[in-house]
């Protein structure tokens, strides 16, 4: 209770005094200069961290595919029985007869010269294989990501804002149900219902085998038609993360006084949400999106396999059955590398979005 009747209210400051009322004044400008130096140090730390991770990935990529087993020679030879001479010849061509240390040296050399070698299966350059499949993966995962993120953030923000409403409860329930559904199961259900039973969309692939003509629009519509089911399946699986993260960070923001102040200044409730709560709540979600950015390149192994979508995921799946070691190595490094870089960019982006992180990190 009342403690300080004698807390002296100082004599009213005279109007002419040129300074603020006595608090020590931080100088934002000086602080900016300091924070610029901090920023470069921050970039350096993040960058070197990413480099270290990449080096570890390089080593892992060599060993992991030699440890998992499988016999590429047999896969290349096909069903026909091989004489030991044929076998030895293939082994020598692939360099598999060399001792591990020599193979490793060869691997390092190939990494440094960016000459990743040819596929065991069809003698194509593995880089060509990757580049050929990359656009398909970007199309599928990009579509799914944009879909899941926009719908998820929108729904999550509303759900968090109307805590306890029927909307919130039903949306959280739907998200959790989708999240719990395994991709392969969901994919098969979707195929059975929409392709087999209702015959609305093609079962698999990216283009019709019958051909649809050469024009841009027929091609475009054909691919779009094939894209619907895999993109929706993939979006459904990652959708829940956006809803739940956005919802919880909106809930966190909701308790803040500045929302009350904004409302008391006359801002409509939904504008308070859009202009104040959502931008601040987006921070964790942005990190999530940036992390998923790695996933754009990784492709979705399960989704692509189920729908036979000719992307990197399917390529990886096919390669691992051989095992097509040069291709696997390249894909592994590509997947891991893009994820590491995406994480690094997420860190940097976060700094630009949040002034508090900017000066304290």
């Amino acid at each position, binding site marked *: *209770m*009342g*403690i*300080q*009747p*004698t*807390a*002296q*209210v*100082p*004599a*009213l*400051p*005279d*109007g*002419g*005094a*040129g*300074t*603020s*009322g*006595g*608090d*020590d*004044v*931080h*100088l*934002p400008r000086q*602080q900016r200069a300091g924070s610029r130096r901090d920023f470069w140090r921050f970039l350096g730390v993040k960058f070197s961290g990413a480099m270290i991770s990449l080096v570890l990935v390089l080593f892992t990529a060599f060993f992991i595919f030699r440890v998992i087993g499988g016999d590429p020679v047999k896969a290349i030879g096909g069903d026909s029985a091989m004489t030991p001479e044929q076998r030895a010849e293939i082994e020598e061509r692939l360099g598999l007869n060399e001792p591990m240390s020599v193979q490793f040296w060869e691997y390092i050399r190939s990494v440094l010269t960016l000459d990743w070698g040819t596929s065991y299966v069809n003698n194509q350059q593995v880089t060509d294989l990757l580049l050929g499949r990359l656009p398909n993966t970007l199309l599928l995962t990009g579509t799914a990501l944009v879909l899941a993120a926009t719908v998820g953030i929108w729904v999550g923000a509303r759900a968090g804002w109307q805590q306890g409403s029927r909307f919130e409860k039903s949306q959280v329930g739907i998200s959790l149900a989708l999240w719990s559904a395994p991709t392969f199961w969901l994919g098969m259900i979707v195929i059975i219902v929409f392709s087999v039973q209702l015959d609305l969309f093609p079962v698999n692939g990216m283009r019709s085998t019958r051909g649809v003509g050469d024009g841009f629009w027929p091609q475009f519509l054909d691919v779009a038609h094939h894209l619907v089911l895999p993109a929706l399946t993939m979006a459904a699986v990652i959708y829940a993360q956006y809803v739940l993260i956005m919802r919880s960070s909106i809930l966190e923001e909701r308790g*803040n*006084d*500045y929302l*009350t*102040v*904004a*409302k*008391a*200044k*006359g*801002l*409509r409730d939904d504008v308070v949400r859009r202009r*104040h709560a959502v*931008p*601040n709540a987006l921070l964790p979600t942005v990190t999530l999106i940036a992390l998923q950015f790695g996933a754009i390149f990784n492709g979705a192994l399960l989704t692509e396999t189920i729908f036979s979508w000719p992307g990197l995921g399917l390529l990886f799946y096919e390669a691992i059955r051989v095992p097509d070691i040069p291709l696997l190595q390249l894909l592994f490094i590509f997947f891991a590398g893009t994820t590491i870089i995406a994480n690094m960019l997420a860190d940097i982006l976060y700094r630009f*979005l*949040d*002034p*508090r992180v900017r*000066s*304290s990190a």
Partner: protein
Amino acid sequence: MTTDQTGPDQTEPDRTGPDGLPEAAQDGAAVPMAAAPAEPALAALELTVRFNAPGGRTARAVDGVNLDLRPGEILALAGESGCGKTTVARTLLGLERPTAGGITFQGRPLQYGTKALKAYRRDAQLVLQDPTGALNPRHTVYDAVAEGLRIHGIHDNERDRVADALSRAGLRPAEKFFLAYPHELSGGQRQRVVIAGALVLDPKIIIADEPVASLDASVRGEILALLMRLRDDLGLSAVVVTHDLGLAWNIADRIAVMYLGRIVEIGSVDEILTAPQHPYTRALVSVLPDSPVGEPQVLAGEPPDATDVPGGCRFHPRCPALAGGEAEAAGVADDCRRTELPVLPLGQAGTSCHLVAARAQAVAATP
């Protein structure tokens, strides 16, 4: 727009006397700007706000409050946590819809339509306890202050208006603060930014909920002095919600003391603090240094629960006058326990207490 502080500062140098008592206590008249016939700037009429509490109970957060804020005065709304003072403040701002009763602003009932409420919110501004929370961490000082202007579509001279509001709130030179973020400022500076954000719309009323409770003692005085200067220079009316009677003593013209959703005593600051009537107010005043009441009284019993309001006088379970036998001696102990007290009428000083009423009657009866 510009404010010339020299005049008022000289005519009214310092309201606080050497012993901490407001000078108004010696003048007698506590309302400096009340020359005009006092139509209240803002009034609450039989205000009632109920909330649904868990377990199907109803919390009577505000349970019949008559309150008027006169033009150019600072009214302190005091009481302990949970007495409903913050709910009154929020309801006065239209952030909470009253369950019953209503708010009048300049004599007209407050409408809750989107447009009417928006217009009202240009005239009544909110200052909250914690300036760190009250500022959006990702908005610069300039954006924070200019937001009110943008909401209300005032686009001319935005820069000048923002600079003017900042310097009126004591941040000078204002331009230096434009691009700062809240986390780069001290607590007192942040609170000044919040106040500048309120001032930029030239409001008629400021409602401040514990405006200095989260600030350092050294900064508190400055913020309070700022509020008083705004009243004196701009004729602002302010409701200051506080749990600290000492603070009310320093800046307020009148005090309303709340207990469990009701105002138990209201009057000018010198009346209430030099001669408190209600046993609850007396207990609050008794713990202040140099208290006129004598021995410090510490209230016994549990803090009040708005979902379970006691019958009779709602203070009776903790009332020291009832426990000490004074009420018995005056013959009102039964009333204290059973008879509900009427709501204090609007616009006059008063005390809501059976014992005080009985004593007043006794005085009137003796020739």
